[in-house]
């Protein structure tokens, strides 16, 4: 079923809220910086959102305090998102709106901090005795409480496809009649586990990441969050954009290396095309997973070449935001929605020497061309893939 997209917002290193994100894209200004994260000595670049640690969360939610939830709250306050949620809740009831969040590491930064201050007994100290915060469901609980939405609430954590899959789950729940609308979101914040973890896999670049460039040598980790309201079309009569379809698959190949032929990626793309009823040649723009790792970009280009022709413009926006992991799915869904709204197709930032070995060419400069159908790919560890397809409602 086609779902209308109501209010949406994004916060990342490329901008807090949509206006500053759009400005960064138009001016081709990266949000990445040399690693300056407190306590991390890795030689890399990161996508850090300024001032997250100074955000005050609502006092009644102090028991959920973590950097992740501070970022969640910062993001919720942008672009009239809370007002949009409240309006829809007034209209249909807070219990008819689900909350489905995606995250990779939830509030693990808070657990890491607790372990640096263990008591002589070996136990965590009182300040960190926050059972909900050390759970994967920390973002779902926080967003549900912070918005007052009381419909079914779940957090999805499938690594870097997490917040793309929230759209698929919301679509099923609404189509089934469990709820009439859903607030979907994704969030991940910078933490030591991710930075040193990706470093252990030798996937972190010491430079600004260069997606699809022949000199690409790894990823930059970012943080961010995004939210979108999805609802039955009649509930959002002014919506201009819709979720048309989704495709989910698993590589069944390796825990941290994508299938060499992009088998799982192609299955996810095919399932999304089939469900949306949009043929590959009608897709105008694809926002790629495009992490700037050697393997991802080679394999994703190969997967694209199996389905698309060069009239489809494709690009990676990771050099603006960094790889925001569990938030990447929704951040890039929102970048796709913004491109559809403005007609500005973002060209891959920092891809100065496109890799001639890649099987599909990526857009390297911003291009103005209307987008009727936009697609986005998200691929995660465990071989977990999700593809989303959006369309203009008055198409």
């Amino acid at each position: 079923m086609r779902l209308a997209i109501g209010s949406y917002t994004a916060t990342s290193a490329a901008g807090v809220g949509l206006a500053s994100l759009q400005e960064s894209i138009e001016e081709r200004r990266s949000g990445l910086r040399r690693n300056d994260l407190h306590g991390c000595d890795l030689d890399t670049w990161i996508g850090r959102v300024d001032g997250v640690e100074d955000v005050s969360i609502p006092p009644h939610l102090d028991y959920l305090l973590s950097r992740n939830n501070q970022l969640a709250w910062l993001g919720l306050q942008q672009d009239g998102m809370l007002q949009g949620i409240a309006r829809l809740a007034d209209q249909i009831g807070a219990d008819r709106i689900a909350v489905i969040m995606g995250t990779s590491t939830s509030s693990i930064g808070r657990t890491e901090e607790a372990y640096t201050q263990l008591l002589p007994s070996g136990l965590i100290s009182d300040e960190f005795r926050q059972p909900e915060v050390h759970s994967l469901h920390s973002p779902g609980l926080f967003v549900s409480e912070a918005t007052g939405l009381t419909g079914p609430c779940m957090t999805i954590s499938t690594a870097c496809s997490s917040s793309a899959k929230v759209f698929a789950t919301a679509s099923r729940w609404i189509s089934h009649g469990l709820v009439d609308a859903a607030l979907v979101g994704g969030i991940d914040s910078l933490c030591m586990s991710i930075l040193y973890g990706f470093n252990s896999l030798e996937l972190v670049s010491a430079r600004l990441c260069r997606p699809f460039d022949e000199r690409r040598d790894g990823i930059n980790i970012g943080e961010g969050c995004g939210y979108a309201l999805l609802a039955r079309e009649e509930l959002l009569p002014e919506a201009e954009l819709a979720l048309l379809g989704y495709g989910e698959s698993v590589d069944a190949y390796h825990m941290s290396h994508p299938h060499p032929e992009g088998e799982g990626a192609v299955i996810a793309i095919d399932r999304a095309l089939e469900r949306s009823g949009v043929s590959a040649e009608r897709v105008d723009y694809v926002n790629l997973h495009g992490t700037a790792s050697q393997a991802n970009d080679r394999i994703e280009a190969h997967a694209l070449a199996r389905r698309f022709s060069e009239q489809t413009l494709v690009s990676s926006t990771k050099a603006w935001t960094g790889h925001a992991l569990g938030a990447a799915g929704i951040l890039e869904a929102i970048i796709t929605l913004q491109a559809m709204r403005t007609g500005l197709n973002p060209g891959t930032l920092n891809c100065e020497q496109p890799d001639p070995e890649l099987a599909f060419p990526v857009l390297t400069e911003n291009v103005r061309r209307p987008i009727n159908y936009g697609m986005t790919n998200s691929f995660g560890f465990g071989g977990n893939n999700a593809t989303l397809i959006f369309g203009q409602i008055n198409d």
Partner: protein
Amino acid sequence: MTDVDIVGLGVWCESFSNWDEFCSVLEGGSGAAGSALKPEVIAPNERRRAPLSVKMAVEVMDQACRMAALEPSGIATVFASAIGDMQITDYMCRTLADAPRTISPTRFHNSVHNAATGYWSIATQSHSPASAVSGYSNSAWIAFLDGAIQAVEENIPVLVAVQEVAPPAPLQPVYEWTHPFAAAILLAPVGYCSSPIASVRLSVSGDSIESPQLPQIPGIDLSGNFAARSISLLAAIEKERDAELRFPLSRYSSLSISIAPGCRTTRSGSWQRSPRQP
């Protein structure tokens, strides 16, 4: 309202390692404490690398598929847990506090919440959708609901696995359990399998309720383990067959599950091992 069939079940903890042993414990037997966890579904080299959380999950998932005699490759999966693999989190946090550059890449990639479904997909060569979710203390019920909706909406069997590992020492004041527990329930669209174990109808209502008391399990204290709350449902499927149960979904909603008896028993004598691809 959501109608689905239950076609397979699996269970593992330190006191019972499969459904037959679970049933015997429910009937007052002693179980089989200490049996090694050695899931045959994953290859020996993968088994060596896999953490306990993965081994528990794939073991119960395999049990449920075998009981249903369904080929795993056509089944979607939903894995659920409140705290994920907190043993790996413990390793990561200790290493980050002492020598962050020595993080093991294998343990890092095993730390994702979807590790179990990743190993499962590799072992069964399944490209079917796989999710990994959390609903904190109510993870079992939100995952059960999500899996049932997916089964109906996508017309595909869905394997729901719920589990918690024992929390690591520093976090023991935070979580009130000490023993791991895992269970799997294989759901199928109504009529997908000719002889379901039970048929269930799910409905959600907007009121908060307390989690029901667990049935007493001799020899092991599973109270407090969020995943073990699923024992209430598992026991009802086995013993009562005709029951109406209610569980919390969140502070604001609850899930009603009404169970109608199916037409086959769960005991191992009554089902065949499903054929496996090489």
